[in-house]
Structure formats: C-alpha cells, structure tokens
C-alpha cells in the first residue's frame, strides 16, 4: 500500500517538473494591467512562456526591482536618480525604462445642462483645482464656452485619494502650465490637494462626480470612455482645443519622440503639436540592463520585441494609445542593449 502511494507521488512530481516551463515574474503599476495580461495571455499561447504580473502599484514595482525579487517591474512614473543608484548598488546592474503604451487622463464633470465636450484652458483647469475658480459661471469659463450657458453652481473638486500614476500625469501637467501649482503643490503619485473630496480609484472619483451636481474630477481615458462619462476638451500648447482620443494621445508622443532622452524618463504632458492632447503619459516596464539567468533574459528580450511591435495592435481595442512608429524603433534598439549572460 505504502509503495503504491510512493509511486503516485513520484508520478505527480515527475509530471510537474517535466511540464515546468520557463516563468517570468513581474510586479508594478495597475494602470497597464489590462493590456499586460492580454499580452501575457497571447504570448503564452504563442510561445508557451508563462509571464506573471502582480498589479501592486508603481511604488511596489519599483521597490521590488530594487530588491531583485522580480524579473521586471512596471511603473507609471519614472524612477528617481536615487532609486537608480540603489538598484546599481544592490543588484550590480542598471535599469532600463521601456515605454510600452500610453494612456491619457481626461477631465470629467457633472453638468447635465451643459452636455459633453466642455472647453477648458490650462489656466482655468489649474485655478479650479487650486480653488480660485469656485463657480461654473465664472467669467473665465464663460469666455471660452461662449456657445453655452454656464449654470450658477459651485464647483466641487474631486481627486484620487489613492496614490496613482493617473494623478501623477494630471498634476505633472498642472505643474507645467501653472507656476503657482508648481510651487504650491508640486508633482507626485499623491499630493497635498488644496481642496476637494478624495475618491478611491477611478471608480471612486467617477462615482463621486456622478452623484454630485457641479462636480469636476479626472480619470483615465479608458475608464471614461467605457463608462460614457462626459469629458472636456483641453486647450493645448498651440492654442487648439483637443478632445482626448487614442489618436490625439499618440500624436502627443510623436511630437515628443524627437526630443526623447536615451533613458525615456520623460513626461509628455503639455506636448507640442496642434493636434496632440496635452494630458497623457507613458507606462514603462523596468528591466535590468544585465540578466545573469540566460534563459530568463532571452525570454524577456523576445517578449519585449514582440510587445513593442506586434503587441501594439492590441492597444487601441483596450483603449490604450500605441507608441508612434519612431518611438517603437528607438525602444527596440534599447531592448537589444539588454545583456544576457
């Protein structure tokens, strides 16, 4: 009897190990989770390589890549110089930031009598979130929306209460367009908001905005489109009011690609170009410059090459903006620099 059990156990162990495939483990940002899991799923069917990704947030992704507990990380905000130094010290190798896709942040509001596609300028937006414009019929709002009658309602500001890449992109934009915001509040995944109510997650902000007459908030573009929220057109650097769409986000990156630094640690908010939407940003994968585990390194390089080319076609249907072609080429060159030995 005992022998039989041993045989079964042996059988189970053997089959487990013979089927054991190569596994890559990653962790980080929640924002790109939808497209990452799509990629990993498709890629597994193609190659049999299993890639696991825990969407624990950008902070967690950066911490884990520093500690070396994952093969790659994901983040919505670039690592600081200090953090890059930490990786070098602890892991003996540097880190590449590889932009994978782009997302945009849209400004949503609850004004049933006004309807969708309200126009906002950077100055008005900053002043609303600084608490300096408090009524919807403020002359500065009326001026840019002459065809609408703006109601005499107080503005209720809603922001994300959880730390988030979405917040980072939004406040990074405000920093660039408003000196006062830059000095008073600054940029980060969470900031000290001058006023407003905090909602947890995109759904928390959306729920609060939907409930409250006269509320304004910001959410991911994908979330706003899926939920049919009204969102504002924003006046970009060239003075054109642009609607957030996948095309206008990709356009923004296209203009910025010319000035792209070699390490890709750049924000593309307030980008030049007359048809680019100004509040958008990258999400990066963090990979080591050198992999000691040959198989893992190779697999990761292959995956990155696939995701940056063929994989990009899955982006629009999931409401992420794909990288513009020039940038794809740049990134592929960087991927080639990853040393595997």
């Amino acid at each position, binding site marked *: 009897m005992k022998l039989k059990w041993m045989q079964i156990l042996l059988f189970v162990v053997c089959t487990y190990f013979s089927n054991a495939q190569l596994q890559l483990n990653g962790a980080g940002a929640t924002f790109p989770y939808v497209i990452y899991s799509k990629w990993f799923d498709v890629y597994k069917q193609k190659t049999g390589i299993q890639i696991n990704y825990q969407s624990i947030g950008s*902070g967690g992704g950066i911490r884990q890549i520093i500690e070396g507990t994952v093969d790659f990380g994901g983040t919505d905000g670039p690592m600081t110089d200090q953090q890059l130094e930490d990786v070098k010290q602890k892991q003996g190798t540097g880190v590449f930031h590889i932009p994978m896709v782009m997302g945009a942040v849209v400004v949503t509001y609850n004004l049933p009598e006004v309807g969708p596609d309200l126009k906002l300028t950077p100055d008005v937006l900053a002043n609303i979130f600084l608490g300096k414009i408090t009524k919807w019929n403020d002359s500065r709002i009326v001026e840019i929306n002459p065809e609408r009658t703006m109601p005499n309602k107080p503005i209720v500001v809603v922001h994300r209460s959880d730390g988030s890449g979405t917040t980072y992109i939004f406040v990074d934009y405000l920093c660039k367009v408003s000196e006062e915001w830059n000095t008073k509040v600054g940029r980060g995944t969470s900031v*000290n908001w001058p006023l407003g109510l*905090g909602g947890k997650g995109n759904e928390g902000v959306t729920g609060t905005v939907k409930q409250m007459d006269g509320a304004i908030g910001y959410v991911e573009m994908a979330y706003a489109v899926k939920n049919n929220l009204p969102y504002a057109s924003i006046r970009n650097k060239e003075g054109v009011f642009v609607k957030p769409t996948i095309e206008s986000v990709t356009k923004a990156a296209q203009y910025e690609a010319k000035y792209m630094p070699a390490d890709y640690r750049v924000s593309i908010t307030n980008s030049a170009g007359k048809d680019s939407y100004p509040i958008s940003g990258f999400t990066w994968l963090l990979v080591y410059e050198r992999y000691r585990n040959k198989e893992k390194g190779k697999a990761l390089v292959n995956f990155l090459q696939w995701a940056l080319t063929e994989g990009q076609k899955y982006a629009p249907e999931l409401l992420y903006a794909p990288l513009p072609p020039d940038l794809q080429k740049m990134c592929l060159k960087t991927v080639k620099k990853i040393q595997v030995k």
Partner: protein
Amino acid sequence: MKLRELIIPAQLREGENRGDSIFYLLTAFFALMIFLLVVLMFYEMYSMSSLTREKFGFTFFFRSVWDPVLEEYGALPFIYGTVVSTLIAILLAVPLSLGIAIFLAEVAPVWLEKPLSFFVELLAGIPSIVYGLWGFFVMVPWLRSTFQPFLSETLGFIPLFQGVPYGIGMLAAGFVLTIMILPIISSISRDVLRSVPRSQYEAALALGSTRWQAVRIALAYGRSGIIGAIILGIGRALGETMAVTMVIGNRPSISLSLFNPAHTMASVLANEFTEATTDMYVSALVEIALVLFLVTLLVNSVARLLIWSVTKNTKDVRL
C-alpha cells in the same frame, strides 16, 4: 534541570507524566506565538519607520501636514479622523444595540426573537465593502439631499453641523461604522444578558420590581460582558478601512464640522501604500500603522481598566 523547573509547573513535574508535560509545552508554545507575533509586528513597524521617527520625532503625532511631494508628514488629522469617526459610531451604536439586545433577550416572544436574531447575525457577516458600496450609493445621496440640510436648518447653530452638505464626510463615515458595529455589540450583549442567571431576574420580579427594573438588574449583572462587546465594536470601528475610505472623502484636515471630509489612519494606509515610492513616504505610512497599533492598544487597555473597575464593585446593584 533549572530550565525544566522554570517552564513546567510543579504539579506536572511531580506527577511525572511525560504526555502531560509535552501537552503543556505544546499548547504553551502555541499561546506564546501570539505574543511573539505582536512583539514582532511592533518591532518591524518600529524599525521600518526609523526615517520619519528620526526626522520628526514626537512632533509626528502633532503635525497636521501631509505632503508627499515636500516629504512633510504628520499623523494628527488621521488620528483625529479615526478617533472621531469611532466616537460617533460608539455613541450611536451602543444605545441602539443595547435596545436590540434587551428586546431579544428579555422581551421578545420566541416567534419573533428567532428570526430577528438571525438577521442581526446576518448583518455581522456582511463584508465591509458591501457596507461601503451601500453607504456610497444609497446613504451618501440621502445625507446630502435630505438629512444634512435638515441638520443644518435645525441644529445649524452648533459648529458640528455647519458647512456645505457634500454627503461624503465624517458624518457618513460615522454612520456606516455605526451600522457595521451594531450587530457585534448587540449579538454579544444579547448572549451576555441570556447568561444572566434566571434566578436574578425572577427574584427581582418576585420582589415586585417592574420589567424595566428587572432588566436593569440583568444589565448590571452583565456589565463586564457588555463592556467587552463594546470593546469589540470599538476595535472593528478603529480598524475599518474599505467602507470608511469610500464615504469619508479622504482629506487629511481637521475641522469641527461633521459635514467636512476627513481621513483615517486605516484608510490612508489602504490608499497610499501601494504607490508610495520614496523611502521617507513608506516610513511615514509605516509610522501611521504604528500609531494605529498604539491607539488600538491604548483603547483596549483603557477598556480593560474600565471592566476591571466595574467588576470590582458589581455587588452593589442599586435601583
């Protein structure tokens, strides 16, 4: 030999039954694990928060700035939010749940008592996210459109009820917590009242007391148990995260008005820990966790003291 004498009690050593000794050691080990766990948790949080402890020292408890960009941190708004929301919940939930408990244990007829008890226990089993969603989508709009305007019209002269009725805010958090701790306090109090010897109750009735007076005797008899139930309620309210963060507005500021948004220690942890990228930020959050740990410890110790002082003079029941 010395160690053996130290860790195995005398009566076991004399009996010299090896099985008993092993059993004793084994269970003692399990029990000590709890203690070790608490010490370890404290140690971990203490060492992980070294950065902010060094930078701010004791002022961390009294600062009301929370600015992750400038790396300026203080725990006061969070302590305030946790304590006040718990206080609202306790003030509202205790009388309500004692009423429920008394009705279920002493007054209700059996055919009503059984289904009612079932529902009270059902309420205790509902996950907190469901309370949060209900609070956010049902209670908050009601607060905003009906209850808060009513409060500010009738009691608006009190600073507690002034300001813009957002719905979301401290009051909403207090209400959700009230509903969440109601079932715990009432079901435990009911069991406590049930375990009061019938003879006490019947003796009171036989001496000619009214039903209310007899209930008061039962309440006095079960005081320590009822306070225990309240402590469990406080514990749940202090640590509640999801439901609170959905309705409190998550704003680290201290204001007298219950209409204004606030923040609690548990909810700031849930909100900001995942995206905390710098070491100082993580350290500040861990220190918040440490403060929550200490506040919970403090509240529990005070409550223990209360039980102890109450049970000390349980005998002089007065009507």
